[in-house]
């Protein structure tokens, strides 16, 4: 029975308002700035292979980001978006999952995708919209997706994936195969109505989903001080009855362990969990952006010091798992691989014209068939105007 007036909530007789100071949210961290474990932090739960694999994926995407920003500046690519500085958040969390847990990304989670095994060639096919792109060349660069890797295709409208993750996870629960979903989003996207819908629904309907917020300080030019007035995103979880944790998002070990624990609770109890990873977007929002218009070099430099890759490398070296030589070999190998893959992709043709009307529906209805026929004639009649497709019309 619903009877709040009679529940044993404490009574007060003066109108005292509660404020955010009613709630203190600590930060969960394993590694200090220098990469050394905090006192009381026990890193032994993270296997060596996991650490190496996380570092590997992080280095790959860091190099990919560098290469593609350069490619965009050279005019070889229309658009790109780096995750520089956020690798611990995305790779560390992916590592904390099982490989067939579903990932619903925002767009800055190439680290998670790489951890799952997306190849340099696959990245390039998407970025250059080649005929081998799994997305058939239909979306802007960085809108990756792969069913084989349980990585839902990126969609630009912000926050739409958050309630979708609740629904997907509910399906996983019904299917009873012990899987869960993770949903990434920025602290900016967490202002959208879909965020609210998702957390509340997931809590009420009991969906095994990990809501993973990358709080990187900015939504394009908008700093968190103009995004919210409360204590970040983790503080909201409590209101929804969703267990929440704030974690140092530049600390691979903490992100990994928090995600692993979140997964355990989500799957075993069938409930949602919220993780807020505090990090920083070291680069521009995207290649269309120039941060000098809204933040200081000084601030950026201050954050360089928390570089997650440097911290995990220091940790690895202290453990005797890594050294400069191995590091250079890894990097050079990836640099070469990435460059070669880019050249290959650049040389590939675009998807054929027929792709344009496929997949709107399972089968094209009359209007699309007719429009395609007319277009084919149009391209045939004006091959110079449509160089991407004119050469190979079916």
């Amino acid at each position: 029975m619903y009877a709040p007036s009679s529940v044993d909530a404490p009574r007060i007789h003066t109108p005292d308002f509660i404020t955010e100071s009613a709630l203190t949210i600590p930060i969960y961290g394993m590694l200090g700035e220098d990469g050394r474990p905090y006192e009381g932090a026990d890193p032994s739960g993270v296997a060596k292979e996991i650490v190496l694999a996380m570092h590997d994926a992080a280095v790959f995407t860091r190099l990919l980001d560098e290469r593609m920003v350069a490619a965009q500046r050279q005019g070889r690519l229309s658009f790109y978006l780096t995750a520089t500085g956020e690798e611990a958040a995305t790779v560390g969390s992916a590592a904390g999952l099982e490989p067939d847990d579903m990932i619903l990304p925002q767009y800055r989670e190439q680290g998670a995708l790489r951890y799952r095994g997306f190849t340099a060639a696959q990245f390039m096919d998407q970025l250059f919209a080649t005929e081998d792109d799994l997305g058939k060349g239909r979306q802007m660069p960085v809108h990756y997706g792969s069913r084989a890797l349980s990585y839902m295709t990126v969609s630009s409208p912000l926050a739409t994936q958050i309630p979708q993750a609740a629904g997907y996870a509910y399906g996983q629960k019904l299917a009873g195969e012990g899987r869960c979903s993770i949903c990434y989003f920025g602290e900016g996207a967490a202002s959208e109505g879909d965020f609210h819908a998702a957390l509340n629904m997931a809590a009420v309907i009991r969906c095994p989903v990990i809501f993973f917020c990358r709080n990187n300080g900015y939504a394009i030019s908008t700093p968190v001080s103009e995004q919210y007035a409360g204590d970040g995103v983790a503080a909201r979880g409590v209101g929804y009855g969703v267990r929440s944790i704030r974690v140092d998002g530049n600390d691979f070990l903490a992100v990994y362990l928090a995600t692993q624990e979140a997964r355990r609770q989500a799957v075993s109890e069938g409930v949602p969990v919220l993780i807020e990873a505090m990090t920083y977007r070291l680069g521009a929002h995207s290649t269309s952006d120039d941060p000098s218009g809204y933040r200081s070099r000084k601030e950026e430099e201050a954050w360089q010091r928390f570089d997650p890759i440097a911290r995990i490398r220091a940790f690895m070296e202290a453990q005797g798992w890594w050294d400069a030589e191995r590091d250079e070999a890894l990097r050079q190998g990836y640099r070469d691989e990435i460059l070669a893959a880019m050249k290959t992709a650049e040389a590939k043709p675009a998807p054929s014209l027929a792709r344009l009307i496929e997949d709107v529906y399972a089968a094209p209805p009359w209007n699309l068939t007719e429009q395609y026929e007319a277009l084919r004639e149009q391209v045939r009649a004006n091959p110079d105007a449509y160089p991407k497709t004119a050469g190979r019309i079916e």
Partner: protein
Amino acid sequence: MARMNLLQALNSALDTAMAADERVICFGEDVGQFGGVFRATSHLRDRYGNERCFNTPLVEQGIIGFANGLAAAGFRAVAEIQFADYIFPAFDQIVNETAKFRYRSGNEFNVGGLTIRSPYGGGISGGHYHSQSPEAYFCHTPGLKVVVPSTPENAKGLLLASIRDPDPVLFFEPKRLYRAAVGDVPEEDYTAELGRAEVLREGGDVTVLAWGAQVEVVTRAAEMAAEKGIDCEVIDLRTLLPWDVETVTRSVLKTGRLVINHEAPRTAGFGAELSATVQERCFLYLESPICRVTGLDTPFPLAHEREYMPDHLKTLAAIEQTVNF
């Protein structure tokens, strides 16, 4: 066969779908224990359990977001939006997500299992927000299918077909007919083909086209016209996207005249698309302008609902005007 009203037919369709396939999941505001404010989901929770038929919190954008995710996971998500007037908070999830899911992923993922049911339309003294006919908004959105039944019998068949269709479907239910329309409905499992219009009455003078609750209205007008010696061909469109251009143009090529009726406001209503396409295809055969009998370009009113509605009298007047052009 059983006598059912349109609501009962829909309930029977949902029941049939859930019995046949355990991946059919029904949810929305008040659809659980209560069975929906119109009772379309009555008894489903009792029969199939709270896991497969449940209440959601009150948030349409969440309902459809959740439904998109559930459908992407391979389920046949049947989401109810309590009134079509309240579908707009979910517009982004429908137009930017549902409609583009398969295309944008290169068919790596799809939400073809999704069906969105929602009661629409006027004639129940519902004013602005319990009367709207928003179909045209969705018809401008490639990737969606839009279906509107008009009788208990086709309601069941079309809903079963929609739930099983490989594409996401918006299924708008003419709530004015929920209890008013009664007819024989097969108790067994059957589907009515999507994308097919139905010629309800053959005639040679003028084609009259409608969908949903307005089918009854234009049928009545056609009967009145018959008394005046005008022989109408009446078509029930049933699926709006993709619509049955063949049946419609075949009819207009024969009659040379077309009257379209819909409840939504005239400007940029779906009647405009039908008119534009038909004149493109039947230009030389048209003997008079294609005529639209529609709601006014106002929000849906209360006191003047009768005056607002494209009723049989206005339709009759349009038929006469078209024939006597």
